[in-house]
């Protein structure tokens, strides 16, 4: 019930974001959207993900958006083209995704394939094998250690990419000055 209410509020936030032209309001609404999403994740008992959503989605990205607004100005341009073709593409994609969810097993269905593969072993043997009561940590850091190493490398690569892009701009500017 609470999840439905939150999802309705998220949908309203999205529509308002699409309609607004003032980008400061859009950034704040995007932060609100992230907080609503974090609340949904808490309601789904995924506290780890909720923490990340609240800290990254609502916190750090809002700050970065505000920084970008400060550099680039706060009003969105009027659209150059009619929005009907993008709207149709978006509606068609959404319809395909909704059609896809019809084939999924019901929410929290214990017989779903994803709960039959390796998950039972993690749940039953995780505490004995790793001594870590939080199964999320046991899976992330131990059973799926390779994947997490890959994820950390992705974060590293993203950071290096931003450093390379923004730093080069700065140096060129410095060289340009007499």
């Amino acid at each position, binding site marked *: 019930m609470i999840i439905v209410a939150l999802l309705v509020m998220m949908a309203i936030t999205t529509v308002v974001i699409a309609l607004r032209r003032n980008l400061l309001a859009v950034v704040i609404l995007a932060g609100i959207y992230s907080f609503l999403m974090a609340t949904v994740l808490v309601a789904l008992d995924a*506290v*780890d993900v909720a*923490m*990340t959503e609240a*800290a*990254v989605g609502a*916190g*750090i990205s809002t*700050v*970065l958006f505000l*920084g*970008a607004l*400060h*550099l680039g100005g706060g009003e969105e341009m009027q659209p150059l083209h009619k929005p009907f073709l993008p709207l149709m593409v978006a509606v068609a994609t959404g319809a395909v995704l909704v059609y896809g969810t019809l084939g999924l097993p019901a929410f929290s269905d214990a017989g779903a394939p994803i709960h039959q593969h390796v998950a039972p072993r993690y749940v039953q043997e995780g505490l004995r*094998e*790793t*001594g*870590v*009561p*939080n199964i*999320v*940590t*046991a899976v*992330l*850091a*131990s059973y799926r*250690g*390779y994947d*997490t*190493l890959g994820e*950390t*490398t992705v*974060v*590293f690569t*993203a*950071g*290096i990419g*931003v*450093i390379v892009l*923004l*730093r080069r701009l*700065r140096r060129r*500017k*410095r060289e340009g000055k007499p």
Partner: protein
Amino acid sequence: MKDYLVLRVIAKLMIAFMLLFALYVQFHGDFGPGGGFQAGVIAAAAIIFYAIIYGLPAARAVVPDRLVETMVAAGVLLYAGVGVAGLLLGGNYLDYFVLARDPVDGQHRGIFWVEMGVLITVAGVMLKIFYLFAGREEDEG
């Protein structure tokens, strides 16, 4: 926002607790929700909060650029190093069972250092991106 007394005082009070919460999320991640990624983001958010209230130069004095850039690479190296340590001790790559005499202790040790690596890289990358974005204006001016 350097001139707002209320913000400065409240920020000073809150930042200590934010950093403490980051440490809690990091080291209590075995038992409660959380882990390296969450702790790294929360720690970075605390420093970003400090930078917003006290200005970017003040934050750069506390956490210098050189340290942040070292953190970006050091975390991944620490994570990969745990795997190499497993190899040297006669196990497979990222095999924690060989890290201590008791396999469960080895798991604890491996998870601890791996999560530490994630924390260092994530906090470093978040801070670096923020520094670069927030520092653009100074360089252009």
